[in-house]
């Protein structure tokens, strides 16, 4: 590995080293200010990814440094920064150690950045595990909370098993094709015939299970609501957006490289997408807990994303990436509002907790409503064009069935997205005391709100940008 390659990987290195440094220094100077330092490091990494042009196109045959990768490094770094900003007050009231928390989030961002940039199966594996391990800790970070511990346990066990699947799947593919590097691995797989090819496909199936777990596709989604519910709200925000988004970001080049092999997997992916949309929607309908509802709804969104992935090509991938960003922004906003509503003793989750909050905290409630409506795909919020892109891609790519299921689930989804809004604005005000939020949370929420609205009204630049990132 040359210096040039190190320079090319600079953003990730900044994140990793920064995290380490914070961890070390935090041991000597425990303070919650380290979270702000983490924000700074994440921003530096984002800037670095944006302005320092990498000298080499690929690092060690593992990670790409192309514009696509850089873009996602920026996105995940910013996400990390936002998530840390959300955590500032949260960590304070729940007495979370600042430096550890901050460094873990940075590690996660680093891992996501690596995953999105992966060009080989090893890179994929490493990136994935880098942030999965972090999440094991983060989810159970609120030690005194039994629900946190249970959520952590579930994620840990499931994650570990998924890792097993992933590792075995990768090893089978490697055995069949003789390469980890992405185009070659599949080219090799295509050239082999008979038994080896079958082994490769089995490997693919195993990888799909692992990915299905990560992004919570039905039927691998069952952990999602439990973990969302148990994890601290800012961590859930990161989990719901980054850990899923990074996987999809990595899958885009992966599937592009897949070539004709995709035909073998088409039916499986179709079923997974359809199942995710349907199961997620149905399970979300009777939910009365906001976090669990968002969990199930994320299953639905993963179904939409998978549709985009299935369509592939420039149109499908652009739609997917746009959808991914739209989903991430809105989800971050929603969980951001949740964490800003949290108090020392409780974190509101049940709908009854939100009764009439809309007039007590109009701004944050509006942001929550906007996020939910954007997730539902109501214009003029960004979610509309995202859904529009996915549906038109599905129709264009010859998947009218998925488009139809998508439309139907979008319709049904309104029921569960509107329920919290109804509770917020259309029910009697509770006389309970105010839920004050912090300044940093407001910054994040304002950014999310602005993005939801602006991208909803004028998505053209982002669409162009995404189009230019794709090959």
């Amino acid at each position: 590995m040359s210096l040039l390659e190190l320079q090319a990987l600079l953003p990730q290195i900044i994140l990793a080293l920064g995290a380490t440094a914070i961890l070390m220094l935090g041991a000597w100077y425990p303070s919650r200010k380290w979270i702000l330092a983490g924000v700074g490091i994440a921003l530096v990494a984002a800037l670095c990814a944006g302005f320092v042009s990498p000298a080499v196109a690929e690092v060690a045959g593992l990670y790409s440094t192309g514009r696509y990768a850089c873009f996602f490094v920026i996105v995940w770094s910013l996400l990390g920064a936002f998530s840390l900003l959300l955590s500032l007050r949260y960590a304070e009231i729940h007495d979370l150690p600042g430096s550890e928390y901050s460094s873990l989030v940075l590690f996660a961002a680093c891992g996501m950045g690596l995953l999105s940039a992966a060009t080989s199966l090893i890179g994929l594996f490493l990136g994935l595990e880098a942030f999965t391990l972090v999440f094991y800790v983060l989810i159970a970070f609120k030690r005194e909370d039994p629900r946190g511990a249970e959520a952590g346990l579930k994620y840990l066990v499931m994650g570990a098993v998924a890792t097993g699947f992933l590792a075995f799947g990768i090893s089978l593919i490697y055995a069949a094709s003789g390469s980890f590097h992405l185009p070659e691995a599949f080219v090799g797989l295509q050239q082999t015939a008979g038994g080896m090819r079958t082994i490769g496909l089995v490997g693919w199936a195993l990888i799909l299970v692992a990915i299905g777990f990560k992004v919570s596709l039905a039927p691998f989604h069952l952990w999602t609501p439990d973990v969302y519910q148990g994890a601290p709200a800012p961590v859930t925000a990161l989990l719901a957006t980054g850990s899923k988004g990074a996987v999809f970001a990595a899958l885009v080049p992966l599937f592009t490289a897949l070539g004709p092999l995709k035909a073998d997997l088409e039916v499986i992916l179709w079923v997974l997408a359809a199942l995710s949309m349907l199961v997620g929607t149905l399970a979300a309908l009777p939910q009365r807990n906001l976090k669990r509802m968002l969990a199930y709804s994320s299953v639905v969104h993963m179904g939409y994303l998978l549709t985009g992935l299935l369509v592939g090509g420039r149109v499908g991938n652009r739609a997917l990436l746009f959808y991914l960003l739209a989903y991430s922004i809105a989800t971050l906003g929603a969980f951001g509002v949740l964490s800003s509503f949290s108090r020392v003793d409780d974190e509101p989750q049940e709908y009854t907790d939100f009764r009439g909050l809309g007039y007590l905290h109009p701004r944050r409630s509006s942001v929550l409503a906007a996020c939910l409506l954007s997730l539902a795909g109501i214009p003029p919020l960004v979610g509309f064009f995202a859904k529009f892109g996915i549906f038109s891609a599905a129709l264009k790519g010859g998947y009218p069935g998925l488009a139809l299921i998508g439309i139907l689930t979008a319709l049904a989804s309104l029921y569960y997205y509107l329920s919290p809004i109804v509770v917020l604005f259309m029910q009697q005000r509770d006389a309970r005391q105010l839920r004050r939020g912090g300044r940093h949370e407001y910054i994040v929420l304002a950014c999310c709100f602005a993005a939801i609205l602006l991208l909803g009204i004028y998505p053209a630049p982002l669409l162009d940008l995404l189009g230019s990132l794709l090959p």
Partner: protein
Amino acid sequence: MTFVSLTELPILSLILWLPLAGTLLCLLFRHSNFACRWLALLTTGAVLVLAICLFVGLPTAPGWLIREDYAWIPTFGIRYSLALDGISLLLVSLTAVLQVAAVLISWKQKEHPALFYALVLLLETGIIGVFLATDLILFYLFWELMLIPMLFLIGVWGHGNRVYAALKFFFFTLAGSLCMLLAIITLYLIHGEQSGIYSFALESLMQTQLSPGIEMLLYGGFLLAFVVKVPLFPFHTWLPDAHTEAPAAGSVDLAGLLLKTGIYGLIRFAFPLFPHAAQQSLPLLAVLALIGIFYAAWIAYVQTDVKRVVAYSSVAHMGFVILGLAAWNQLAWEGALLLMVNHGVTTGGLFILIAMLQDRTGSRDLRALGGMWKTLPFFSAFFLLFCLASLGLPGLSNFAGEILVLLGAFGRWPVFAALAAAGVIFSAAYMLRVVQGVLWGPLGQLCKIGDKDCLHEDLDRREWLLLIPLALLVVWLGIYPTTILEPLRGPISLLLQGGGLP
């Protein structure tokens, strides 16, 4: 103001976005009730002035009178293109008028006034957008934009069963419009494959060659979205609930404007885009419209809630409009559009009056009301006038539209038209039942003579200001509908020729 100077300004954008600016200002000054309501009034008033300028200043020509067209999302071929012809001009004017009324009727809004006015203004942007957009996605955007403010208006400020009503309204309309979205995208893709140009512009998409089966399917998607909004039997059940539970301004907007967007969508988009399928669907539309006329009138007759009666009467009136459209001739179409405007004014007026009634008596129950002429003579006179207009008394507004529809429809569906004429009797039956229950008879159970609560105040200055223009409009449109028919003539003949656009 001359034609030239009108077109130099981006006047369509101005008229479209002015209410949105009002929304933002309202939210900005949300702590001052005073500022908010004046802002709302000023904004709607300004829109009204602009609309009147357009109405007076523009010539009556068949084609587009003003257009605006800018690139917006080139990736998808979506453009920001607005256009105004006689039909949209009329509907925009109606919107402007009714929105001023909606603001005035909610002048004493006490609960969350800022949000209320903001939503009313936002709704205005949505509605005007629907009437102006010629890019299908832009249209869809405004189409959906109308939903959210309405959802909140009903859900937050509504009466008794408001959340149910709000959600029902939302789901019915959204179910339809998602079908339309699917159809729009499909059409866009087919057109793109045929011509190589991916565009959502109405003009381009009209050139698409479609096989009959596909055309019918896509038309079905559009049709569903629009007839739910209109609403046509059997998709009408959201309407009585929504109208009844909505606050006054909401009812006015719903009945006066939102229903019209459905009709407008039919004639501007669904029919021109799928001319053959449209022709084939006419018998179905006519039958459903006829059923609606009877069915709604019957149901209206047994309602005890005044608002519900008026709500069902809207279904019946919209049945007339659809019947007129299904007749597919100049006469019936002019009648249908005229009736649409007339219905907006009369029903809007009725809802305003019912709101005043409820303010004073706290009830809308026909069994509990009665004898209002004794205590509120001026109010009652207006109430009677609007009821008469609604039941189609010649010389008042609705008659002109209804008779044109019937005359036109008779040429194509004699039996249907004859039956529809019978609907007029039913409308007399339920409307007079309302008049009977509210105005005549002894004072209702709610007040016994000598009751202190019973000394209701008759109309105050704001209410006079609100009702007189509407009443004048009702009479004016009844005796001189030429004002409206003149600008409609050209656009309608264009639409009927199948071209639909200049």
